């Protein structure tokens, strides 16, 4: 049986995005079944507009250059790659309602669900991570 990796993305900065998507794509590349539950600020990571320009932590703006120099893929590229490799994205319905967001605000191919949708996937997970 495939390994299962369940990830909660609850923060919306550029660093958070790399932590989430690097682990997710690496896990998918290692034949794992991966789902990410995006909640609260974590929704920024799959928001059609926001994910193109996620903020760096205050005072760390100069690190932007480091990303370019290290030839690190952009977040939209990583999101596309993750989806291509079968990573499942679940956007938190409750957060979307609170923030007045609909499925159309997000990248294509996501699922919208509640906490139980994620928990149902996570209950059989071999690895569970929160970022």
């Amino acid at each position, binding site marked *: 049986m495939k390994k299962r990796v369940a990830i909660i993305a609850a923060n919306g900065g550029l660093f958070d995005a790399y932590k989430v998507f690097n682990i997710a*794509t690496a896990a998918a*590349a*290692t034949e794992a079944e991966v789902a990410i539950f995006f909640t609260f600020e974590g929704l920024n990571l799959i928001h059609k507009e926001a994910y193109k320009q996620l903020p760096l932590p205050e005072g760390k703006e100069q690190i932007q250059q480091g990303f370019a120099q290290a*030839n690190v893929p952009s977040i939209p590229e990583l999101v596309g*790659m993750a989806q291509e490799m079968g990573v499942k994205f679940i956007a938190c319905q409750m957060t979307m309602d609170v923030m007045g967001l609909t499925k159309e605000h997000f990248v294509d191919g996501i699922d919208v669900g509640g906490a139980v949708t994620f928990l149902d996937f996570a209950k059989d997970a071999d690895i569970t991570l929160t970022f």
Partner: protein
Amino acid sequence: MKADLVVDAKGLACPMPIVRTKKAMDTLQSGQVLEIHVTDKGAKNDLSAWAKSAGHEMIDMIEEGDVLKFWARKA
């Protein structure tokens, strides 16, 4: 060593060497050999761990200057 396919992941940062390697491996048949070229130093341990968890056999690894070369046989 004779490889059936070569992946050039030089200059790419994590997780791209693993992603490229996985995609290339998917195109091979069981028993075929994949050769992987990387410059990401983290890939040295990463590729070995990847092969282990995916069940492939890591046959050899050499360093040529800044380039790391791996040979892995598909499970």
